[in-house]
């Protein structure tokens, strides 16, 4: 199976993962997003007709209010028609397969699918199946990838730090189960971030994680020392079962981001989180709401980045 993200002209056909995404495309997306951010801040025009007459189907096999909403807003600001489907509660529970669902929606003349699914590889499967004029955006597949989240994170980093080539970045938390972490790592190595660290207990790191191009730390104090950017990961409550972690309290003590630990990072370090946050589990409220936090701007930039991705896909020949 070839990497189906690019078409024969080298344009973005689908956005499935940040792995192997050419740096020029990443930079194009970030530049394009900047024009949408400026436009929204100007306050006058929020809506552009770049996707007029196109139908975007948000198909979410896993519940997510936030991500689905930001995609919906992004599509509407591009003047697309948006249909939201929470498949978790409909067809597949009646035995319909994933590709049957997709075929049915294609028959309704979908131009773009925004897909979230609990299984790694679901977006690739759909992208390999649909007709050439249909585009697929991966809004999160299992533990594999969440490329628009990583791209909005890159936008945020560039907004505050201007450059990538002089940064030291730490990703903290449940890397093993995190599609966000994987996509962030690939995006940063593509953009030339020289030092990416992951900080987690051994139970929350996948095998050979170093081969993704990161340095591994188990001690948060060491890992945070002199970093420019701290990317926190969400810790699902279910990780307290299955002998991965003993308790949320102990996790917070050793891997939760507090003011004291953050003080080890550079004085102008920024703190990011993909949301939704578990205050008091992976991050202390005083940090989440503090002066280093850029968590809310991430959300704002997220809409612009998703507009950039969708308009770029819609423009591919």
């Amino acid at each position, binding site marked *: 199976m070839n990497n189906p993200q690019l078409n024969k002209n080298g344009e973005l056909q689908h956005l499935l993962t940040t792995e192997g995404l050419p740096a020029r495309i990443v930079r194009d997306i970030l530049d394009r997003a900047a024009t949408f951010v400026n436009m929204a801040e100007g306050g006058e025009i929020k809506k552009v007709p770049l996707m007029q007459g196109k139908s975007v189907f948000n198909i979410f096999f896993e519940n997510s209010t936030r991500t689905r909403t930001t995609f919906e807003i992004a599509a509407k600001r591009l003047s697309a028609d948006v249909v939201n489907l929470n498949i978790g509660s409909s067809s597949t529970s009646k035995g319909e397969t994933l590709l049957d669902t997709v075929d049915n929606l294609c028959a309704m003349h979908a131009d773009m699918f925004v897909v979230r699914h609990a299984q*790694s590889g679901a977006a690739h499967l759909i992208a390999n199946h649909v007709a050439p004029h249909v585009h697929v955006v991966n809004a999160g597949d299992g533990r594999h990838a969440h490329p628009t989240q990583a791209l909005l994170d890159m936008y945020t980093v560039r907004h505050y730090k201007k450059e990538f080539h002089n940064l030291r970045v730490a990703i903290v938390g449940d890397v093993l189960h995190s599609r966000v972490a994987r996509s962030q790592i690939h995006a940063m190595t593509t953009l030339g971030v020289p030092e990416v660290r992951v900080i987690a207990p051994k139970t929350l790191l996948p095998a050979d994680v170093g081969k993704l191009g990161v340095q591994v730390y188990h001690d948060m104090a060491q890992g945070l020392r002199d970093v420019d950017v701290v990317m926190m990961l969400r810790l699902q409550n279910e990780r307290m079962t299955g002998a991965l972690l003993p308790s949320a309290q102990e996790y917070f003590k050793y891997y939760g981001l507090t003011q004291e630990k953050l003080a080890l990072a550079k004085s102008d370090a920024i703190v990011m989180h993909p949301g939704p946050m578990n205050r008091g589990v992976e991050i202390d409220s005083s940090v989440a709401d503090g002066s280093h936090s850029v968590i809310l701007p991430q959300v704002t930039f997220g809409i612009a980045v998703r507009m950039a991705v969708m308009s770029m896909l819609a423009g591919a020949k």
Partner: protein
Amino acid sequence: MNIHIKNGRLIDPKNGTDAMQDLFIAAGKVAAIGNAPAGFVADKIIDAAGLVVAPGLIDLAARLREPGYEYRATLESEMNAAVAGGVTSLACPPDTDPVLDEPGLVEMLKHRAKSLNQARVYPVGALTQGLKGAELTEMAELTDAGCVAFSQADVALTDTRVLLRAMQYAATFGFSVWLRPQDGFLARDGVAHDGEVATRLGLPAIPSHAETIALSTMILLAQETGVRLHVCRISTESGVALMRVAKQKGLPLTCDVSANHVHLSERDIGFFDSNCHLTPPLRSLRDRDALHAGLLDGTIDAICSDHTPVDEDAKQLPFAEAEAGATGLELLLPLALKWAGAGALSAALAKVTQHPARVLRLDAGHLSVGAVADVCVFDPEAYWKIEAAALKSQGKNTPFLGLELQGKVRYTLVDGQVVYQG
């Protein structure tokens, strides 16, 4: 019927034969090699010029999907696939529905297979009732019904005491126990090797020590009980190393590997190719190299197809949800040849004839005078493209789809009858 196979290159690994010699078959048996026996009149002459004449292949693991999974494959389709692949004897694992844990089911399967007059089918009975790992099956009754060994198929036996007792009981009667080493807890929910690729793709993983921990337990219990243990589908470097040491100690162990694992690694998964979703998972390149070394030095006795026909719908799913397995009966010969290379045809054939026969304790897999005339005549040079239309099996699922492989079966004979001609 008397058959004269002439002008062929006769390769019989067990007898150390590799020469241009004619083969004469009469009354279902090898009547003579080289010169015709006195008074021999051929009813049929097969011109094997440019072809290799070898013992019929013996496959230690081929799922025929009957009973229970007829929508995936039927005995008819898979028996056709077997002879099209030059396979004249095959062992089928007990993971049917219902499980092969009752003599009646085994007798029915044997009877159905026999009536098709194609490859010989050797059922492997369930070691525990329903493969549930709790109660023993009636192994002696099942043996009378035709079972050649007892196994858990791909179901891990997590209760070590049950494993010990199953081995003790089997050893009492001299039965063989075939087990695939995989710790059920360490492998739980896993679908890919715990390495670089699973990490990159975010796939739940199965570590190598899921194999070695289970294998260590099996070897220790086999030593304790004296049971004849056959280790199925070994996949890791450390597993091969454990087997090598155990064999050096002189334990009565044998071991096989799937043809897929001889050639493929985790990297072949690419972007979630569900045809590469196999059990055990495709492992690292290092592991694959160790499997090659194990085949070469005899640590691994046999190559099997691990034939598992899966319907298209069950593969058109996200990787972890897709059903594991690959069709393989028709690929066993070319994949064995590809392992050994053109210069070592006899070494390749030994892994799919002589040695699997030894595992099964069958007087088969050779072409001595007087032996049953199960024969595979193939063109070692011919390339063919692996595509759905080229496969007789109802399962079209294989990681080799779209590739060209060398080695094509021209004739398959069972009991001295031509059952396939291609």
